[in-house]
């Protein structure tokens, strides 16, 4: 169920009208959320109805064990079991084909078949689940005694497919709260976020994908260097609008149920360094990698190890996106970029130059992220290297959408805040009319129906 499809919105409205009349009862409210979560998973594959409750139940019991265990070795054993479980699920259902293919390549034997591939949402589920058990192990959070609350939190449907990766410890108190209300301003904000998310996804991201990005990355040799380069920049914008559009819809959906999710983006292409970029792009993932991976690695006070740890963290972060060498190179490039930023203290050069250089580096790495294969990425780079000049394939409407996308990204945050507040303060019929106009616009202007969000693949 794609978050920009009409089926999702029918589902969401149904959950809204089912949830709020029962929300006063803690158990019934949680039961509705849990039902919605599992319904959402089942829409992708019924197998999830076995996999997710089983994993969640084991983690719930392990966390209770850690809460009660006094001995450090026992807590360590329990958290290790949780890490092994979640990473094992990730490896089995997402990475096994990659392992088998490389094994086959090295051994010269044919790759064994592996029919158990259920990658959708598994990465986000596993990371979200680990925030809970690792927090409990570190005594940063208390284990909840409520099985129902845990199940409802760890698989909370708006965050299931592509985040924002939300600490279970943040979700639990919001879902367990007895006095649940939805202020009119929050309701308006939720609807505004969903509308903005749809516009980002359907009017900008999908348009750029259809009219330039997919073409350039499918057949780079059919385009000039300047067109391919424009395609790479267009992909940077497409990915931002696609993923931040998804995040807006997910955040708005959660807010309709009175749940606040963390921010995931803050004008990432205005970053002045790679470190700054990761403070602005997919913020919840970078926080997760920092808190649960980087801080766990040894050698924080050594001279060289922290640099290696940065590279290793980002390499693993790259592989988290998918099991192929392109993502590994993408992560490696960002790891090297972060290490270089750390190695050069201070801020050399004027701000505009640092911002420009950061965007170029990020776009270079995006080529590996987007290309279908390593050969594809090299073909794109080779084509850019041909230095051929022509913009014959950049149509007028495409140039306009690109300009809107650039302008929209750099728009001051306070402008968006102002529009959001104005929308939330407007009467219900004005809000409904605005949504209806948006739906009509999307119907007639949007480039596509309901293409999957890019980040739901990870």
């Amino acid at each position, binding site marked *: 169920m794609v978050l920009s499809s*009409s*089926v999702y919105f*029918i*589902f969401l*409205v*149904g959950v*809204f*009208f089912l*949830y*709020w*009349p*029962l*929300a*006063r009862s803690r158990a019934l409210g949680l039961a509705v959320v849990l039902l919605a979560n599992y319904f959402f998973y*089942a*829409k*992708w*594959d*019924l197998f999830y109805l076995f996999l997710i409750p089983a994993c969640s139940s084991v983690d719930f019991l392990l966390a209770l064990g850690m809460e009660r265990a006094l001995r450090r070795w026992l807590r360590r054993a329990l958290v290790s079991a949780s890490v092994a479980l979640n990473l094992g699920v990730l490896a089995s259902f997402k990475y096994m084909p990659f392992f088998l293919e490389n094994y086959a390549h090295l051994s010269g034997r044919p790759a064994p078949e592996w029919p158990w591939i259920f990658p959708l949402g598994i990465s986000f589920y596993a990371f979200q689940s680990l925030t809970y058990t690792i927090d409990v192990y570190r005594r940063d959070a208390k284990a909840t005694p409520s099985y129902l609350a845990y199940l409802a939190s760890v698989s909370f449907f708006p965050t299931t497919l592509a985040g924002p990766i939300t600490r279970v410890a943040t979700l639990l108190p919001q879902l367990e709260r007895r006095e649940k*209300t*939805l202020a*009119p301003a929050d*309701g*308006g904000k*939720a*609807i505004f976020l969903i509308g903005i998310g749809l516009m980002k996804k359907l009017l900008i991201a999908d348009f750029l*994908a*259809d009219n330039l*990005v*997919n*073409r350039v*990355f*499918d*057949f*780079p*040799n*059919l385009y000039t260097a300047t067109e391919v380069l424009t395609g790479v920049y267009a992909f940077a914008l497409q990915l931002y609008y696609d993923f931040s559009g998804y995040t807006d819809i997910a955040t708005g959906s959660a807010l*309709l149920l009175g749940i606040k999710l963390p921010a995931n983006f803050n004008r990432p292409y205005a970053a002045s360094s790679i470190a700054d970029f990761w403070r602005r792009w997919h913020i919840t993932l970078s926080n997760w990698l920092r808190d649960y991976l980087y801080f766990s690695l040894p050698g924080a006070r050594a001279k060289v190890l922290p640099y290696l740890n940065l590279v290793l963290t980002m390499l693993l972060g790259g592989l988290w996106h998918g099991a192929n060498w392109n993502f590994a190179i993408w992560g490696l490039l960002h790891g090297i970029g972060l290490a270089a930023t750390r190695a050069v203290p201070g801020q050399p050069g004027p701000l505009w130059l640092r911002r420009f250089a950061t965007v170029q580096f990020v776009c270079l790495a995006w080529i590996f992220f987007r290309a279908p294969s390593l050969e594809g990425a090299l073909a794109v780079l*080779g*084509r850019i290297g*041909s230095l051929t000049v022509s913009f014959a394939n950049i149509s007028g409407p495409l140039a306009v959408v690109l300009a809107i996308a650039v302008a929209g990204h750099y728009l001051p945050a306070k402008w968006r805040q102002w529009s959001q507040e104005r929308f939330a303060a407007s009467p*219900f*019929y004005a*809000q*409904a*009319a605005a*949504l*209806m106009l948006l*739906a*009509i616009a*999307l*119907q*007639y202007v*949007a*480039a*596509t*129906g*309901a293409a999957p969000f890019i980040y739901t693949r990870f």
Partner: protein
Amino acid sequence: MTLPPAKTSLTLLTLLLLLKTPDALPAFKDYKVLDWRTIPAVLDFAPRKTSPAPVEEEELRLHPDRDAASYNVFRLNAAEGALDHFYAALQRTEAKETGAVTRILHYGDSPTTADLITGDARRLLQKQFGDAGHGFILMGKPWAWYDHNGVVLHASGWTVDPASQAKIRDGLFGLGGVSFRGAAGASTQITLKDPSHTLLEVSYLKQPGGGALTVEAENRSLGQIQTSGKILEAAHKTFAIPDGARRFRFEAAGPVRLFGVSFDKLNAGVAYDSLGLNGAYVSVLARMFNEEHWAEQLRHRRPDLVIVNYGTNESAYSSFVERSYGKELKEIVRRVRAAVPESSILLMSPMDRGERQAGGAIGTMATIPRLVAIQQQVAMETGCGFFNTFQAMGGPGTMGRWYEAEPRLVGGDFIHPMPGGARIVGGLLYQALLDGYNRYKVQRMQERFARAAGKAGPK
């Protein structure tokens, strides 16, 4: 139990009311954005279908009976006897008569330029009838996209003039439609995957002041070509290839103008020249090629079948399709007939071409069916064969379906096939040619029986 939040509930309910309005009030029917019949889809738990083998699945969908005895292929549409010359050549090749090479020239646009479809058809035909060599290759890559299966091509120092871009006006573009002008030092390296070719032939232009071209195989000289002549005149020079040689080098020692090089084998088999021109349209063959020069090139190559496969680029211009496409196509047929009257001609329609339609679905561009109909009509009027690629691959909407396959069978421009999609189309063309050939053989056999029966009949 309590009421849901008032304002948000009212917003959502009002929105639902507005969404329902176009169903209730016909005046607003153009603003319908929600199909209420999709609501039960919320309860549809059928898993999203992905296929590990989309090419095979699409082939099976196109031919569900392909394993059955009553196997049906998408047939060529040909006037009586239109392709007989080609079939007769194929029959001699199948009988392994000495030197019986069946030669096919396939003129096309961008997919052909990358040897997509043609590469697959060549592979299948050579598997069935024998391999008479890779065929014609340009002296360099006029477009980064230019590529041939089993060939690695590097070139430097050439001034490249494709007929489709018409930088030079004399119309002398050789067989492949591209002219390469170079001074001393301009060179081309070709590496073939297959080391069993026996002959190579360089096509070039003799010209006043023309320089020499050296030809090497595996770093050993095969000889030199002197390209000087009193007048502009197309010429060809053949070299025997040493056993097992795969790497060839051509270097200009003075000003030369080249067209391409052919790699052939002496044994019986099929040779399939993929002659793609990026962005090409019918007028390139009908107008840009110098008629006399092209006729010489065709006569020299002696094709048994000439396939003319244009239409995708023209489909963006509906007025051209209506006013000029048919006339230009007839002119191509006339030129080929005048040059090689014995050769068969097959007009091949473009693939489906998609475009986004209101609501987001990928539909077939309106000009495609019209253009295909014109091609079919021209084929019937001029006695050519016709292969309806568009219908063979599934007709309207195929591009959308192939785009949504995973992995995709066509690219994001809804025009170019990915290798998997090209494999399907190449297979369809091969099946159609093979089907036509089998029917030809049956017909010949029946005629022989009838003649024999006539001779042996009652006296």
